[in-house]
């Protein structure tokens, strides 16, 4: 039975323009990395801010380690937040930034020095105590911000799109860093992002959000292999949708299709083949619908534009009555 770290019970917070969250119930297990995934305005940051104490919910309760923290302000909660930017205080050195929280808790000076040095080792940034944030790169700043939060040994580490302001290559490195640090410290992490690739590579569980409601919760494989509705299916990875009768639609992924020049369930015409490196993407036209299919390098050689081919769908799901976006 997994240890329950955080329980969010029936939380709602609605803003003037109608955005926000309604009746959210969520359980977060100890030591897991949970990601809240969704587009802008879906409410993921709102949940995070309610958890951290920066936003008062209109209703509902939040329990951390079994204690009701709903009325506690940010400074009294056992959570620690890393924002997208402007985390570190520019007029303080790295040491002062890291030591700030420990000084508040009246930790003796020698112990502070030890802990800060230890954290910098963990972050693989030794010896930069005397530098100012302005002298560090964006990635280094975010790592120090995470270090500052971890030094306080929070019950939950909250991250609000911390890598969105960094470039793609650094983002990938930071993801690996975070996973390594989480493995070594065992801290519970709640991560917010709109980048589905980030969610898939980082999380133990993903919460896909749509317009203030939870669309699906599951492990990355569960969400990828068995999306329960049109929204989740189209949000993660690539998905084709074919309308069927009775307002139903057939959903299948480009890699779950077998193509052959002579035999198959359905027939279609190749519109375009695009080279994507070790595989190719073929756009097919079938009953006036556009379908995306992945072809291996060899297959791609065999097929050309305007060629008529057959395809068989190996794996699919059927959704009922969803409005096409």
């Amino acid at each position, binding site marked *: 039975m997994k240890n329950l770290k955080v329980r969010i019970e029936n939380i709602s917070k609605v803003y003037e323009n109608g955005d926000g969250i309604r009746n959210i119930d969520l359980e977060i297990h100890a030591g897991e990395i949970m990601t809240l995934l969704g587009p802008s305005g879906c409410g993921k940051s709102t949940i995070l801010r309610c958890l951290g104490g920066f936003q008062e919910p209109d209703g509902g309760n939040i329990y951390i380690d079994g204690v009701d923290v709903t009325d506690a302000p940010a400074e009294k909660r056992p959570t620690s937040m890393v924002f997208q930017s402007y985390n570190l*205080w520019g007029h303080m050195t790295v040491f002062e930034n890291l030591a700030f929280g420990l000084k508040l808790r009246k930790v003796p000076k020698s112990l502070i020095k030890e802990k800060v040095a230890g954290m910098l080792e963990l972050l693989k940034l030794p010896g930069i105590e005397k530098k100012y944030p302005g002298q560090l790169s964006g990635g280094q700043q975010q790592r120090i911000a995470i270090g500052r939060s971890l030094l306080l040994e929070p019950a939950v580490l909250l991250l609000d799109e911390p890598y969105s302001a960094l470039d793609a290559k650094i983002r990938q490195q930071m993801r690996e860093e975070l996973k390594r640090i989480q493995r070594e410290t065992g801290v519970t992490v709640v991560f917010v992002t709109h980048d589905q690739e980030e969610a898939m590579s980082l999380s133990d569980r993903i919460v896909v959000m749509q317009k203030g409601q939870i669309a699906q919760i599951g492990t990355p494989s569960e969400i990828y292999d068995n999306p329960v509705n049109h929204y989740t299916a189209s949000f993660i990875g690539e998905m084709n949708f074919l309308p069927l009768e009775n307002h139903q639609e057939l959903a299948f992924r480009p890699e779950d299709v077998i193509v052959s020049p002579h035999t198959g369930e359905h027939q279609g015409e190749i519109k375009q083949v695009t080279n994507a490196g070790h595989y190719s993407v073929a756009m097919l036209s079938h009953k006036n619908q556009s379908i995306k299919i992945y072809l291996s390098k060899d297959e791609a050689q065999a097929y050309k534009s305007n060629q008529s081919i057959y395809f068989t769908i190996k794996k699919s799901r059927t959704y009922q009555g969803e409005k096409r976006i």
Partner: protein
Amino acid sequence: MKYLNPKRAYQSLGKKFFFETLIFSVFLLFFYGPLLNTLMLAFAEQYQVPHVLPTRFGFEWWAYIFSQNDLLESIANSFLIAVLATGASLLICIPAAYALARFEFKGKSFFMFSFLLSNAFPKIGLYTSLGILFYRFQLMGTLTGVIIVHILNTMIFMIWIPSSSFRNVHRQQEEAARDVGAGPIRTFMQVTLPAAVPGIAVSSMYTFLGSLEEAQGTLLVGFPEIKTMATSMYSVILDYPPMAGAVFSLVLMLPTFLIIWICRKLFGKDLFSKGMSL
């Protein structure tokens, strides 16, 4: 002397540059002339008609000024009032500036605009009505009264400029401090205030220097009990020869130069552009 001929200068510099140089020289003379005249007068010991320049230079008038007790008292008063007015202004205006930066409330824009109003018209009308109130509260001729007048003059600086400095401190910086466990007051003192120091430094500097030179209100409210350098200047000009006035005005100008020079060294030459973003 042959080459000092204007015609030669004209030919060598070219028409456009020649006239630009001419106009610039006239401007420089116009701008710095009075200052140079003051410098000359301050060190003149003997200056009589029909000579154009002083016949003897020295420190006679400096010794004279510094031997007058009431003038020395006015110099001390000026600095005392400037320091007290700046301090009190900081205490009143900085929290107000922070509130205006972070909170929304009804009538906020009118409130901010109202400070502009008090500076948009000749102050003498304001001071006259202030005088009536001061007589009622027996503040005329007191140090408190003079300091109040000085604070009123500075409020627009001390609220508008720090307010925009506070607004430029990202909310997330404060939230990060609250998250780490700091209460609201500690967050303000250790995170918000240090980040807003350039703007506050600029406004404090303007407040201090403005207080040193404030004459109208001080004259109306403080005279004759409270004398500052600015108000004593009137009597010095009237009662003493021009040399004494020149010395006194240099004494008045010196703190301004010093403070601006020190601020520029301490905060860098971007201080004024950083601080003055309204």
